[in-house]
């Protein structure tokens, strides 16, 4: 038991050192702009097809499933208000984070871990490049920047899916739909969405780079790192969602 507690505490200390090093590297020159842009492209742009499909389906299905409840009260005209609040406040950041954990997290975890196994990270270190700055800081920054962008996109495409679901049964002009959406959501909702997305983006980047960088040697280590990146990111994202909801409720 004491051994387990010691291992856990040592792991926390390692995580703390990793976090502090990230903040130190991120503010000290030289800055890896080119690599950050490349990672934004890899993480952001290459996720668009998958995120478009899932965002659209979530919006469409959520609207379809919400309709019967509102129909009971003759309130289907409230559907745009309901889905816009649900998508902006909860679904968009959460769906984006979960999809990104699966796609981006596993990719980063496996990539860094295989670089570790094949000594590519050591090769970078001995050839005068700071691998932490080049590989780790750039990826964490890219996920922190791109997840909010993807989140806005998911919100938009989710609302489009919701609109299509509504007009499959009711008559509603796109202008009326957009008006209702903007009447329902407040600046605070948008701020909360961006805040969530930034936190989730940082988490996905941090967790997946951490498990990849400290993966065990061997091919088994690569598989474990990819798996741990997805599982740990998703788990922490849910915990953060729970905490953020409570904090925002307290703030009002």
């Amino acid at each position, binding site marked *: 038991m004491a051994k387990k507690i010691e291992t856990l505490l040592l792991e926390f200390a390692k995580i703390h050192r990793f976090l502090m090093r990230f903040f130190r590297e991120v503010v000290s020159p030289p800055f890896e702009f080119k690599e950050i842009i490349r990672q934004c492209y890899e993480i952001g742009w290459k996720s668009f097809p998958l995120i478009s499909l899932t965002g659209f389906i979530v919006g469409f299905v959520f609207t379809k499933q919400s309709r019967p409840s509102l129909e009971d009260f003759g309130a289907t005209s409230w559907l745009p208000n309901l889905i816009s609040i649900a998508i902006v406040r909860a679904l968009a950041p959460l769906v984006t984070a979960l999809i990104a954990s699966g796609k981006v997290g596993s990719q980063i975890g496996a990539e860094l871990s295989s670089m570790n196994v094949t000594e590519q990270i050591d090769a*970078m270190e*001995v*050839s005068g490049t700071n691998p932490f700055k080049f590989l780790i800081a750039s990826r964490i920054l890219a996920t922190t920047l791109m997840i909010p962008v993807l989140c806005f996109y998911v919100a938009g495409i989710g609302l489009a899916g919701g609109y299509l679901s509504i007009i499959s049964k009711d008559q509603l002009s796109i202008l009326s739909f957009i008006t209702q959406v903007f009447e329902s959501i407040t600046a605070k909702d948008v701020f909360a969405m961006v805040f969530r997305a930034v936190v989730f983006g940082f988490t996905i980047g941090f967790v997946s780079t951490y498990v990849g960088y400290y993966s065990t040697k061997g091919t088994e280590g690569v598989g474990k790192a990819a798996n741990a990146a997805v599982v740990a990111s998703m788990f922490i994202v849910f915990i953060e969602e729970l905490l953020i909801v409570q904090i925002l409720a307290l703030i009002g």
Partner: protein
Amino acid sequence: MEQKKNVEIDYNDAVIHVDHVSKSFGDLHVLRDVDLKLYNRENLVVLGRSGTGKSVLIKLISGLLKPDAGDIHVLGEVVNHLKEKELRELRLRIGFSFQNSALYDSMTVRENLEFPLVRNKRNLTRAEINKEVEDVLDGVGLLRTINQMPSELSGGQRKRIGIARTLILRPDIMMYDEPTAGLDPITCLDINSLINEVQERYKTSSIIITHDLACAKMVGDRVAMLLDGRFERVGKFSEIFDTEDERVKPFYDYNFIV
């Protein structure tokens, strides 16, 4: 077998001094109070059984690991006391050829070679970078692979490209980790010739980690044998194996099929 040319070694000028260094991993004592010198323009072969700490030694020299005791002097600097920035600058003078080449597999051969160059010599023009890359690749006889991906190369070609990538920064010291491991005998001979060629052309001092005695005989000016965490036998190849020590004899017997 191609004979090694005579290189003028300055035995008064040690470029590396591993000064009474110890290193352990948990209860495993890998290096025990090790003392070793690499002289200017010398090829020093480090022999030893697998898991005896040969690779640990060169990782300590390049600052990838820190010793538990003792100091490591490289080109007048004490590696284990250097700050990160100073260590990074020193590393530019040390070439490190990894056992599995450690080529960046998301980059082409050209990009692999450009990577250390563009990051450490930021004032070079595109034409200068291209010339450097092509010259070094031509030097290892693999200019034709310039646009290939590492996955398309053979083991021997990967080793050569790995060596070329370290040479592009014109290091003073080269460290080869198992340069002939996993290669066929003909390719081994090619790699050994390349190591000698690097010593002559680039005027480097090198540490070669291996358990291939043919390699040791062909490239080594001196051989140091790591036994039970210590360098118990250091000298010319013929001196090292002139012994009845049961820890040393099987090496010779196996490699030369006595």
